[in-house]
């Protein structure tokens, strides 16, 4: 049994930790509200962008354009959105584990573009343990494995609050990689927010464009048994937005130029919205995990207090017994 001093010290440590977790819970709660507002604000511009992209991509002439025409997929890019910091429960590990499982089942070579330190560290560790060579980056922040295959592209550490400039920077990198043929498909890996407890990591293909997915999003046209939430993070469109589905569109500067201008927007907005959704999930995960950590700390403190009191009582009882037996001996 530990000494009273040791129990007291441990109780103090747990109490201090619980104060930190409580503060982190409060901070996460306040940041959650801001992240919710941010995600809502992103929704409409994303929808407007999707509207334009869909109306361009559904044209027959667009099917032969480089960003719409499917290619033979040899290298798949994964933009992995995670957080920079830990202490947010299973938020990061859920995303990374799901993607790792997906890659195991896929036959293409994965190329990672991590947005967030946790995801970057996880997949870099995996690649390094697989190749048994230290990671070496070129001047453009690209990491090629010893057999010369592109494995990871550095996109920097994004800030905690989603930022369109960062999303655009990553989108520009994706476009240049896609155009140069270094990647054949682009997938976003992020966490979708249903409610504070239900956070689901998902993989969504963004390039080449999938006109069927765009039609379902723009026209709110769901498949049997599909829920609106399954499509992504967008607010459900108003009724009139759906009429865009049947309209013929004129392209003032030629469909190639319109598509060339609209694709960076589409990617940036999709990334921005995914980052907003993930940021919201991060705060929700941190809030719940810190809440349970505070509760657990309270339980431990209670147990330690009980242990401390028992020990104190046993010492008092022992002292009384000694006094009584001493007095008895004197009589």
């Amino acid at each position, binding site marked *: 049994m530990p000494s009273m001093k040791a129990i007291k010290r441990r109780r103090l440590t747990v109490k201090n930790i619980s104060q930190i977790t409580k503060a982190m819970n409060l901070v996460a709660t306040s940041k959650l509200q801001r992240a919710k*507002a*941010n995600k809502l*604000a*992103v*929704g*409409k*511009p994303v929808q*407007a*962008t999707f*509207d*334009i992209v869909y*109306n*361009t991509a559904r044209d027959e002439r667009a099917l032969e354009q480089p960003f719409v025409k499917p290619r033979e997929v040899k290298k798949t890019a994964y933009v992995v959105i995670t957080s920079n910091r830990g202490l947010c429960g299973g938020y990061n590990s859920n995303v990374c584990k799901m993607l790792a499982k997906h890659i195991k089942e896929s036959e293409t070579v994965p190329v990672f573009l991590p947005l967030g330190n946790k995801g970057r560290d996880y997949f870099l560790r995996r690649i390094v343990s697989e190749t048994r060579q230290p990671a070496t980056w070129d001047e453009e922040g690209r990491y090629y494995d010893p057999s010369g295959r592109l494995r990871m592209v550095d996109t920097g550490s994004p800030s905690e609050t989603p930022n*369109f*400039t960062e999303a*655009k920077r990553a989108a520009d990198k994706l476009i240049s990689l896609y155009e140069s043929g270094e990647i054949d498909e682009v997938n976003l890996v992020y966490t979708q927010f249903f409610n504070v407890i239900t956070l689901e990591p998902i993989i969504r293909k963004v390039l080449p464009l999938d006109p069927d997915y765009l039609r379902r999003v723009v026209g709110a046209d769901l498949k049997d048994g599909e829920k609106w939430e399954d499509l992504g993070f967008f607010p459900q469109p108003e009724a*009139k937005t759906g*009429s*865009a589905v049947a*309209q*013929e*569109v*004129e*392209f*003032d*500067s030629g469909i190639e*130029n*319109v598509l060339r*201008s*609209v694709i960076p*927007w589409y990617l*940036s*907005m999709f990334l*921005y919205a995914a980052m907003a959704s993930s940021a919201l999930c991060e705060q929700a995960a941190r809030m719940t995990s810190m809440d349970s950590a505070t509760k657990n700390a309270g339980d431990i403190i209670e147990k330690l207090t009980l242990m401390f009191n028992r020990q104190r009582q046993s010492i008092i009882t022992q002292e009384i017994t000694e006094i009584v037996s001493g007095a008895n001996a004197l009589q």
Partner: protein
Amino acid sequence: MAEVVDEKKIELRVIAPTMATDKSPYKFQKLVDMVIMRCTTGDMGILPGRMPVSAVLDAGILRIFDESESKMVVMGGVAHVSDDIVTILSDAAFKPDEINTEEVTAKMKEFQKLCDETEDYNEKTSYRKDIYRCQIQLDVAAGK
């Protein structure tokens, strides 16, 4: 005979995500009579009832006609017209009161100096574009 007034309007939505506020997802949103925008193929005027069109925008002045004419600077992007809604996606769009003329003038002078110094044709063209972007901002700020 009473004058027939066409009350049909178009909705102009300017999306510039870098400048989105918490209150509105749009940089600018208003019901207007007509919009004239600078496309890569020339100026395009949009009136109510316009058939759907998508266009690539050049850096230029967006002219908005309502009860009076107002202007905005749009630094390129994409425009889409559908269902009497004009959606403009742009990296940067400024209203006249948002333009810091001193800062823009200083930038313009800097670009002019760099343009004079360089001999490279591509760099010169790029600096000339930057100078033009500054010039349109100054024009809009001055109410031209």
